């Protein structure tokens, strides 16, 4: 389990990091918690690792107005501990499910997005909330909506010469409520199925409802479910029926030895009904406490 040899550079500026990737044979290293196992198993053999963690700009975690900005070098455990991050409750709900403490202490939020494992939690959170992912490349900087960022299994809008520099999540407002759940064989494993849910209420009625499923397709699957939530009202049986229909539509993974497609559909339907219901209840109580 020794990686093949590679060169290592640790630039001090984003522009330098982008320049290091110019030959197309480099790979960005932040926490390395997904990348280093890939190197150890020699599934990947980049010529150069570009360590971006010394770039000061990327180390910032701060709230600006209605956005929480998480730099690409910010570790998951740093977000768990940051008071500012409480403004995005869904992040706090999802992070304990990301690997283990020992991985979150080095792994980064942006790294998880860039790696884009189809069963990973944070890509689903980003899709559910409509986060914006910032990239720097040879042509300059650009921003990509999370819902258009993931294009397949471990494939994203990040080009070979691009560096993810930050992600911005919208902070929660009164009347917003969230739910997050997943089923994995063991705590810390990738999910067999999972869901991130966000519901907004106005005067007790559903104004908006969105979800992103993960572990159910080759990428996180986003769906606006405002109409579904409005239709089922407060009837839990109707909600379960509706999510079962939704699961048939959204779960398209072929399944594996850990769970067939049908099993994952059932997991997703049950989880989604549970977390949408919980998100609605939280949304109502957050509106009342305003």
């Amino acid at each position, binding site marked *: 389990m020794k990686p093949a*040899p590679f*060169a290592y550079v640790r630039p*001090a500026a984003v522009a330098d990091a982008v320049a290091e990737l110019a030959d197309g044979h480099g790979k960005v290293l932040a926490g390395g918690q997904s990348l*280093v196992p890939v190197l*150890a198993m020699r599934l990947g053999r980049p010529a150069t690792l570009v360590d971006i963690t*010394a770039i000061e700009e990327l180390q910032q975690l701060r709230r600006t107005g209605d956005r929480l900005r998480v730099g690409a070098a910010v570790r998951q455990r740093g977000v768990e501990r940051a008071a500012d991050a409480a403004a995005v409750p869904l992040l706090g709900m999802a992070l304990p499910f990301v690997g283990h403490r*020992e*991985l979150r*202490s080095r792994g980064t939020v942006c790294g998880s997005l860039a790696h884009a494992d189809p069963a990973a939690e944070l890509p689903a959170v980003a899709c559910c909330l409509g986060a914006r992912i910032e990239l720097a490349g040879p042509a300059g900087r650009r921003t990509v909506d999370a819902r258009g960022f993931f294009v397949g299994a471990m494939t994203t809008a990040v080009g070979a010469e691009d560096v993810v520099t930050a992600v911005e999540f919208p902070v929660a407002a009164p009347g917003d409520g969230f739910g997050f759940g997943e089923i994995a064989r063991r*705590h810390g494993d990738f999910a067999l199925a999972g869901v991130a849910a966000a519901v907004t209420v106005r005067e007790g009625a559903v104004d908006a409802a969105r979800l992103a499923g993960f572990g159910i397709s080759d990428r996180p699957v986003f769906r606006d479910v405002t109409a579904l939530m409005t239709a089922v009202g407060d009837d839990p049986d109707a909600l379960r029926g509706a999510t079962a229909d939704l699961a048939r539509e959204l779960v398209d993974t072929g399944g594996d030895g850990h769970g067939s497609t049908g099993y994952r559909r059932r997991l997703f339907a049950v989880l989604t009904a549970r977390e949408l219901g919980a998100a609605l209840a939280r949304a109502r109580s957050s509106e009342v406490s305003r």
Partner: protein
Amino acid sequence: MTGYPRPRPARVGPGEATDVRMTVNGAEVTVAVTPRMHLADVLREQVGLTGTHLGCEHGVCGMCTVLVDGDAARACLLLAVQCDGAEVVTVEGLGRADDQHPLQRAFSAHHGLQCGFCTPGMLMSSYDLLANGPRGTSVTPEELPAEMSGVLCRCTGYRGILAAVADTAAAHPDGLPPPANLESRTVLARSRGPAAAEPGTEQPASGRAGATEVRVPSGAPSASVAVSSALTSDIDDVWAVVLDFRRLARCLPGAELVETLDGGLFRGRARVPLGPVTLAFEGLAQVLDSDPGQHRMRLVAQGTDVGGSATQADIRLAARPGPDGGTVLEAAADLHLTGRIAQFGRALAGDVSRRMFEQLARAVDEAARTGADPVVSVPGPARVLLGVARDAARRVAAEAVVRLRTRLRPRPRRGRRAHGPNG
């Protein structure tokens, strides 16, 4: 580059070594690493701390869990080059044999181990949970299975482990005590690194035998010995031999001075046959303190063996005039053993060292008296030992065999190790 928590380095080519500075268990360490070397290998092979175990080497099993900048991390998923400036604490830093950390005592009380292979990882992960977890020592026993899921016990001995962690948490409502074995260990000397090797100096393939610095060992020694020998020679003659490293080395059975380096640094080798085992050390020694007027000297020596053993010794030598003429030579040493050699246990290590010091004193006496190089049978320290103290040597050899058998053969594997230590 100011303002960055991790200054340096700019660029390291594949296969090229670069210096990385870290603090390991409170001691400053500089290691030369290539980009692909992970932290666990560096801790084990270069720093000599083999308490950090390696299981899967791709981040699944948690055996290699250490604290990096205060938080638990997988040492196999961290490249050593990423750790420039990092503060690392390994299981060796948690406590010492005679002063264990509360977690270690609880693991012992609950028998929180079966084969023991996951224990370092379990200890460091549970330390992190109780010291840095979101709820500290207020974590409930019900939360522990999920919270401790980052380290696997393939013996499935989880009950004792979780009970130990729960007990430790309950016993420390105001917070977990910090690691108990962090000491400062000063970097004394360092070469310019492997790229700047002197012509003719062999560069070993791994960093193991290629130590380029001498460190004052820290923490509890594996064994301590003190030997007082009455010599017939005059004190100034005795001390003249002690100060002449070439002659002094020849007084030690099996030892040889290879090279005298700058800065009071010496490179040497020594062969120590023990029953079925022969240890062949190569290493460095450095005089820390020498007061010829007072006939006192302190030196540190470190050696690594091709089999993966490592030893460090902090040695104090002193001479004073004997009551009836002659000289009393006093030698005291703290020995730190890791790897294969540590399997011998502290009693055996102490006994063997004591005999070697007695032999050294006798040879120094002879060299001081005759002015000639001492004649010690080389390579035959085992024979020397037997001649000096046949009974003791026989006892320690027997102990070694017993220990080797119990260590090496807990689970006989079919078709392998047909020959035990008894042949």
